[in-house]
């Protein structure tokens, strides 16, 4: 399943917000702005062109195919942000172990 790149993943700030609510503290939006920017800037700076992503995809298939048989049409590769990191994520369906 592909996850949208724009997915906000505020698990950490959500937790903090919960804590703040428990202790009756109002969370400042400044901190939230900082956290959101931190992730979006990393993503902006590491943004790969569609051509580079395709090249990465081809090479992954080439390497994985040495060991497994994979469905070439099922592979997807993308730069994804989670609550505390920007990750290169790739998924593909294995059809057979060599």
């Amino acid at each position, binding site marked *: 399943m592909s996850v949208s790149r724009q997915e906000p993943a505020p698990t950490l700030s959500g937790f903090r917000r919960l804590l703040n609510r428990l202790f009756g503290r*109002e*969370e*400042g*939006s*400044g*901190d939230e*702005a*900082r956290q*959101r*920017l*931190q992730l*979006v*800037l990393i993503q*902006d*700076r590491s943004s790969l062109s569609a051509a580079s992503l395709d090249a990465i995809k081809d090479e992954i298939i080439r390497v994985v195919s040495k060991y497994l048989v994979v469905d070439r049409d099922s592979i997807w590769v993308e730069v994804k942000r989670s609550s505390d990191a920007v990750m290169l994520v790739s998924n593909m369906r294995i059809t057979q172990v060599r």
Partner: protein
Amino acid sequence: MPAKVYVITSGKGGVGKTTTTAHLGAALALRGHRVLLIDTDIGLRNLDLVMGLENRVVYDLVNVIEGVCEPHQAMIRDRMIKELYLIPAAQTRDKNAVTGQQIKSLCERLKSDFDFILIDSPAGIEQGFQNALAPADKAIVVTTPEVSAIRDADRVIGLIEAAALPAPQLILNRFRPSMVRRGDMMSIEDILSLLSVELLGVVPEDEHIIVSTNRGVPAVHNPKSISGEAYRRMAVRLEGLQVPFVELEVRDGLFSRFKKLVGFKARAGANA
């Protein structure tokens, strides 16, 4: 020594590039430097208006580039400061009327007559921005403490570094210490660490700036204006000297200081 050429840019529009150019230029000229401002926002000319020189525009940047007039014929002298000049942008043309190389050649030609040349860049990262960047030795990036402005500033910083210019300096504009105090604005440290840049100055949100642009008189002439003082100190820093940043907390009025004294927490918006 030939002039140092600075481009003042931001990516996002409306963060205060033109106001910054006018104020920084005036502050440098007040310190005795010979300063030339060039408005490269062709089609959206505004630096003349902010400086109160709109009625003196005869020739513009495009006229100079196209050889219609000599550079000195297009230079408008400031009304108050002797060694401050402006070459206004053309209002009826577009960004493609000039090239970066042409502006660069013009700057090279004028460098020996000035100590500082400040180039007011248009918003965006397209041709107009590239034109403004081409002649620059150094870049100053203006941003406000908003997520959109900071993201665009980061993009522009990347493009400046890609153009092999030295790391730019940052001016943080419309900063509101009272909002930081109650946690609703990123702190100066937060913003600097996000963008990993050096700080040139912080300009607090200041009504004097609106009054000053209304009148076409930069706030650096107003001794009471805290933002005017912020620009005066930036001018000193551009000379390579160290000077402390303006004390931003003194903006609290007597009433809010009294409230704090008796233990009331300042309500949101009460002293913004």
